[in-house]
């Protein structure tokens, strides 16, 4: 009895085995057939459609476009505002880049591209287009594989001098530049063809050293066509607990004026940021610039407080003062600004700024300027995040 059961069991497993093999064989045949059909259909496809082998769509750089337009009301007429000066610093401005007209302005369309060139370099280009000009705002390459973690930048770019010189108008927290920057470098800051080297010190606390050699075309502080401009800066930051950070920096820019006289600008800045939650923070930022331009000492400061209320609203105030001027000029030049910004979505900013400014000279006469500017800034496309 036992034997028969065992035998039948053995036979049945054998049978089952044979059945399994058959089933497997059938599946293999089916798979082979499917593979053949798919190969055939690929051949059909290759016969009927064109090759895509030279398509380079995947290599399109990150492209973005930023639009900035505004409505402005001020107590100075357009004809008078054109070519305003800053007492003791600027005789007449030759170009007003932003919010020039009382009434409506289309300030610019900023077209930016970014991509890796290859394993060794990244390339960035930022073009400013306005109704009557095309301007290369910045265009440079950055190294990626330099020894000792050095980072070299070459091309034309905004200098790393100071706290805010590299930040474009649309990314700044106020519609207008701080007065001291405007007085010493103009609204577009130090922007030159040249070369820069940065090095981050390998410590837990962030310290970055930088040096630049630039063409020195900035006419307000430098501008000698034969001499280069040298800048150097040290920037650092540290955490004070989980939610508080401090940033500091000291800078120097040394060049020659358009009359070939020595000109040096020193800068010091300090920022304290208190994070409240993901969407709310308070930032206090101050910066002092001191200039020795052919033995004429001038200096100025700004200090600003910004409160990010939530992901939609930000309010801020800034105090600007030119604290030192040439002996024959006024030394009570001040500017007050207040701003409210509404951001319904990450890439959309609406901002309203009120400015009271007593530093400006219109047609040889110093007059207080009161201004309201309502501006929108939108970003479309692939625009990288901004640094702190």
């Amino acid at each position, binding site marked *: 009895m036992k034997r028969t059961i065992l035998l039948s069991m053995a036979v049945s497993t054998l049978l089952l085995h044979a059945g399994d093999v058959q089933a497997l064989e059938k599946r293999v045949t089916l798979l082979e057939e499917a593979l053949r059909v798919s190969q055939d259909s690929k051949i059909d496809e290759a016969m009927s459609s064109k090759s895509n082998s030279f398509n380079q769509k995947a290599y399109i750089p990150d492209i973005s476009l930023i639009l900035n337009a505004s409505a402005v009301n001020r107590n100075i007429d357009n004809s008078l505002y054109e070519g305003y000066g800053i007492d003791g610093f600027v005789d007449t401005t030759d170009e007003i880049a932003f919010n020039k007209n009382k009434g409506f302005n289309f300030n610019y369309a900023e077209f930016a591209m970014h991509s890796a060139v290859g394993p060794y370099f990244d390339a960035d280009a930022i073009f400013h287009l306005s109704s009557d000009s095309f301007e290369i705002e910045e265009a440079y390459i*950055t190294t*990626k*594989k330099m020894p000792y*973690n*050095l*980072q070299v930048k070459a091309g034309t770019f905004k200098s790393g001098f100071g706290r805010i010189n590299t930040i474009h108008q649309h990314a700044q927290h106020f519609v207008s530049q701080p007065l001291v920057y405007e007085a010493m470098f103009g609204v577009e800051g130090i922007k030159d063809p040249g070369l820069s080297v*940065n090095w*981050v*010190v*390998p*410590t*837990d*606390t*962030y*310290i*970055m050293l930088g040096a630049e050699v630039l063409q020195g075309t900035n006419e307000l502080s430098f501008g000698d066509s034969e001499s280069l401009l040298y800048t150097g800066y040290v920037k*650092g*930051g*540290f*955490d004070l607990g*989980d*939610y508080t*950070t401090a*940033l500091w920096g000291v800078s120097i820019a040394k060049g020659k004026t358009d009359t070939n006289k020595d000109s040096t600008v020193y800068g010091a800045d300090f920022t304290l*940021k208190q*994070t409240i*939650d*993901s*969407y709310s*923070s308070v930032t206090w930022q101050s910066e002092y610039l001191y200039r020795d331009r052919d033995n004429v000492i001038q200096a100025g400061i700004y200090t600003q407080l910004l409160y990010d209320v*939530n*992901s*939609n609203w930000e309010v801020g105030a800034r105090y600007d003062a030119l604290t030192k001027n040439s002996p024959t000029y006024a030394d009570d030049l001040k500017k007050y600004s207040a701003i409210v910004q509404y951001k*319904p*979505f*990450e*890439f959309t900013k609406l901002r309203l700024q009120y400015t009271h400014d007593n530093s400006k000279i219109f047609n040889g006469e110093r007059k207080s300027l009161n201004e309201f500017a309502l501006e929108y800034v939108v970003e*479309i496309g692939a625009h*990288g*995040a*901004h*640094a*702190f």
Partner: protein
Amino acid sequence: MKKLILMALFSSVVFAKVNVATTYQYLGEVVKAIGGEYVKVDVLANPKLDPHFIVPKPSYIGKLRREDLLIINGGQLEIGWLPPLLKSANNEKVNAGGDGFVDVSRVVHMIDKPKSVSRAYGDIHPDGNPHFATDIHSIIPIAKLIARKLESIDTEHKAIYKSNLKKFITKYKALINLLNKQMKSCKIHKVVQYHELFNYALHANGIKSVGNLEPLPGISPSSKHTLMLINLMKKENIKTILQDVYHEKKTAKFIADKTGAKISIVPHDVGATCEANTLENFYKSIAKQLCH
């Protein structure tokens, strides 16, 4: 004397740890579990903050400058805060494409990949939902990837990483079984949430997310949308609102008042809530919060 120098040299080799940074806390926990005493882990993001908008701190640059390995969540979750830090740190090893750059989203099957991408639909993630950390099933493949990477850059301790991985897998397989069993008795089948943050955990447990408090990803709640949601919740008899730790809670409270629903604070990362203080407790807490 010679012996002493040799010993000093040897010990410095022995104690040379692999420097690893992870963007989020849960990844740091996995690295610690696999790497043990042979790795030094720096976690960048504060788990109490929105993972999309981590406030960049200068100290991150100092850290990134020195790391051998950077492990990110990927799926574009870090796109709003990490790239400028990497650029400033200028550390070839951990830049995207470097040998020490690991994107764990590559080993996870991403869900909710949008069929069409436009910012008109809000701040969507074109590669799919990057919040897979909330599903415990993601953690084993992620641990495998991290172990492989550690083995490849620190061959000396390969065996240890392998055995730690084995232990990790055994532990988390048991936890998966435990939580699966626990979730079977869950009476909740439909929820609403603030942002599509918990879809992976919900998906794994057969719970349906019927709506979001934000009208579109990255857009703050509006009264119109909130009223619509209240009506929907009443109609579908939804009694659970899943709330993260970092968004405002006023909207959820308002909806809860009108519908009688309960607000569950669900952690999105290890350390987001007190209860989620370890990786294990993070998953236990998610299971608990989804179902009570």
